[in-house]
């Protein structure tokens, strides 16, 4: 007897239209939600010739967790924490466990996830698939730098425990490999010790791009977590004006006396859900212009040591569920690129282009990356990374993004696959010089191309 659902019970496939967080380019696939490892293996056997892809919480903006006409394994029911070493902060979690859950469970014990993206509604599998980064990339690298081992289901139906020491090639092909090497069943993660659940935050408002870049270049060594919000609609003198926030987890001593009793208190939970009836023009040049103005003015000129909750500092967007609906039916896309250091001129040009086009990005975020890791398709490399959100019905968007692509390419930059939903496949190999190596390795572990996604087809990744 096993404690889970019995082996002969098998979850039925539902034919479902799927899209990414940006709600563009849906395709229809058979979706199965396995409850156990055995069921994942069983589902893999039942695939059609259109192949299989794993899906986490669907927080990628485009189509990497879709597989039109094929099988999509919704991994979110594999959501158990299998083991935890609370001395060392080593956690073994199934792939469908969300970072939200890990934070909720382990912050009270004094551990935080090593890396978190701007939302904690992502799964461990999705965090590995995209090798996600956070505000601490310059200090700690990306998610897979903290993965000690993972159990990977391979195309031939076998499960292999993969570590960076024993199986570096497969490990680093899977890190950022967008689900194309196999299905992560579980992973062992090294968590980050914390003394309190509050972040001590320093905020600075800068008047333009030069100022923010100079300021950020100084902060790398001083802070673990750094991010700048940029007003991409500001023009002229104000071009690139920003609000910089830098943080560290507060030490016990930093807390006021009344908070010291329960320094690791943590409450998750989201507040409001956006209704699904928005006509499609809410974020536009004018509303976003107003919003940006307000956001910029609201930020303090200079403030140090402000204590903020994990949610407020790391995941402000999570307070509103399904906020992607605010973009209406036509959806939106995120454009994130990295531009190497010493290419500041190109970054400035990009910001100028966006501002001149009046393209209304609601979330414009500037960060600095430290050294990249050995992930074949992992995104981060040393440089500046700028992230923008655009409604797809923004006039002239295709041309603007095409021009930005050119700028990124000609400056040794690259686009992030977890955000991409439109790049030219011809650019892929130029941006990711290890693409061929990735393909070779993948051909070895998955010769029949069992693992495939809409994104893999669109960009010819496999």
């Amino acid at each position, binding site marked *: 007897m096993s404690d889970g659902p019995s082996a002969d019970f098998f979850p039925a496939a539902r*034919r479902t*239209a799927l899209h990414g967080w*940006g709600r*563009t*380019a*849906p*395709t*229809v*696939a058979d979706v199965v939600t396995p409850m156990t490892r055995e069921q994942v293996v069983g589902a893999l056997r039942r695939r059609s010739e*259109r192949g299989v892809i794993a899906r986490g919480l669907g927080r990628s*903006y*485009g*189509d990497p967790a879709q*597989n*039109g*006409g*094929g099988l999509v394994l919704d991994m979110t029911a594999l959501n158990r924490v299998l083991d935890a070493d609370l001395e060392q902060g080593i956690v073994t979690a199934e792939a469908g466990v969300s970072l939200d859950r890990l934070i909720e469970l382990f912050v009270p014990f004094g551990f935080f996830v090593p890396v978190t993206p701007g939302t904690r509604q992502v799964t461990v599998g999705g965090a590995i698939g995209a090798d996600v980064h956070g505000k601490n990339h310059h200090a700690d690298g990306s998610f897979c730098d903290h993965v000690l081992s993972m159990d990977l289901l391979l195309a031939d139906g076998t499960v292999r425990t993969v570590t960076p020491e024993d199986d570096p090639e497969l490990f680093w092909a899977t890190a950022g490999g967008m689900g194309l090497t196999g299905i992560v069943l579980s992973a062992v993660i090294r968590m980050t010790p914390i003394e309190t659940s509050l972040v001590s935050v320093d905020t600075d408002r800068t008047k333009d791009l030069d100022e923010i870049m100079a300021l950020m270049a100084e902060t790398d060594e001083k802070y673990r977590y750094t991010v700048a919000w940029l007003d991409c609609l500001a023009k002229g003198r104000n071009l690139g004006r920003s609000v910089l926030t830098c943080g560290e987890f507060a030490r016990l001593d930093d807390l006021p006396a009344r908070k010291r009793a329960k320094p690791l208190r943590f409450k998750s939970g989201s507040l409001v859900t956006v209704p699904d009836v928005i006509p499609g023009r809410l974020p536009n040049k004018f509303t976003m212009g107003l919003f940006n103005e307000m956001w910029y003015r609201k930020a303090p000129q200079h403030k140090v040591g402000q204590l903020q909750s994990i949610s407020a500092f790391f995941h402000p967007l999570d307070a509103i569920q399904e906020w992607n609906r605010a973009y209406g039916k036509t*959806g939106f*896309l995120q454009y994130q690129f990295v531009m190497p250091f010493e290419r500041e001129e190109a970054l400035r040009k990009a910001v100028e282009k966006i501002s001149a086009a009046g393209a209304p990005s609601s979330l414009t975020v500037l960060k600095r990356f430290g050294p990249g890791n050995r992930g074949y398709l992992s995104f981060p490399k040393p440089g500046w990374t700028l992230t923008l959100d655009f409604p*797809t019905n923004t006039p002239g*968007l*295709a041309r603007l993004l095409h021009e930005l692509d050119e700028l990124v390419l000609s400056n040794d930059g690259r686009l992030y696959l977890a955000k991409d*939903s*439109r790049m*030219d*496949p011809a650019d892929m190999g130029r941006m990711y010089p290890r693409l061929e190596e990735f393909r070779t390795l993948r051909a070895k572990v998955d010769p029949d191309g069992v693992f495939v996604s*809409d*994104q893999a*087809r*669109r960009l010819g990744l496999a």
Partner: protein
Amino acid sequence: MKDALGAPQSLLILGGTSEIALHTARKMVDERVRRVVLAGRPSEALDRAAEGLRRQGANVEVVAFDAAEPETHEKTIDGVFADGDIDVVLLAFGVLGDQESDEQDPVAAAKVAQVNYVGGVSAGLATVKALRRQGHGSLAVISSVAAERARKANFIYGSSKAGLDAFAQGLADKVHGTGVHVMVVRPGFVKTKMTEGMPDGPMATTPDVVADGIVKGLRKGSTTVWVPGQLRYVFSVLRHVPRPIFRKLPI
């Protein structure tokens, strides 16, 4: 795969020498389409068309396809899909016939119906089967305003398009929710080889304008596209003109 802005990457044209389809192909290759398959009766014109698109930077394949042979359609179309996903299929073949002489030659008249309607039914169904298997994609069926109401001046052609048009509408409803999108395109009088030497109809248009309408309609996921757009209103009036009057109209 289509991208987030609705731009497709691959295109199959059934009726590969159709001027409307080739104008559409050119516009799409200018954007993101890289793979184009031209299906048609082998001819120099077909090869020339392929060459033109290749020069524009597309990977073009030429496939033998005869609209008048429905028994071959499924195999041919499946073969194209077996080599990779197709995002957009244009069903663009069709013959105009010669109304005056076809009225005297029932076999010739039946040929028009055979190509335009019967061929459309089998090619349309085979296409939709393949699109459903891949869980995404669009089929644009080039109908005609002539399908809206049979006119005595060209009712043989018109009725064949009417059949095709009704078929495509039903097909569109049938596949709703399967990831497949079917769109009916109703151009007015288009100045092409097919209509060379004929006097321009009212609101005559060009293949280029029709192609624009197709590209936009596909992007928006429209079910019906009229080119020029005003024809929608002209025909909604014409449709209701009483027969005795309609009969006398000089159209």
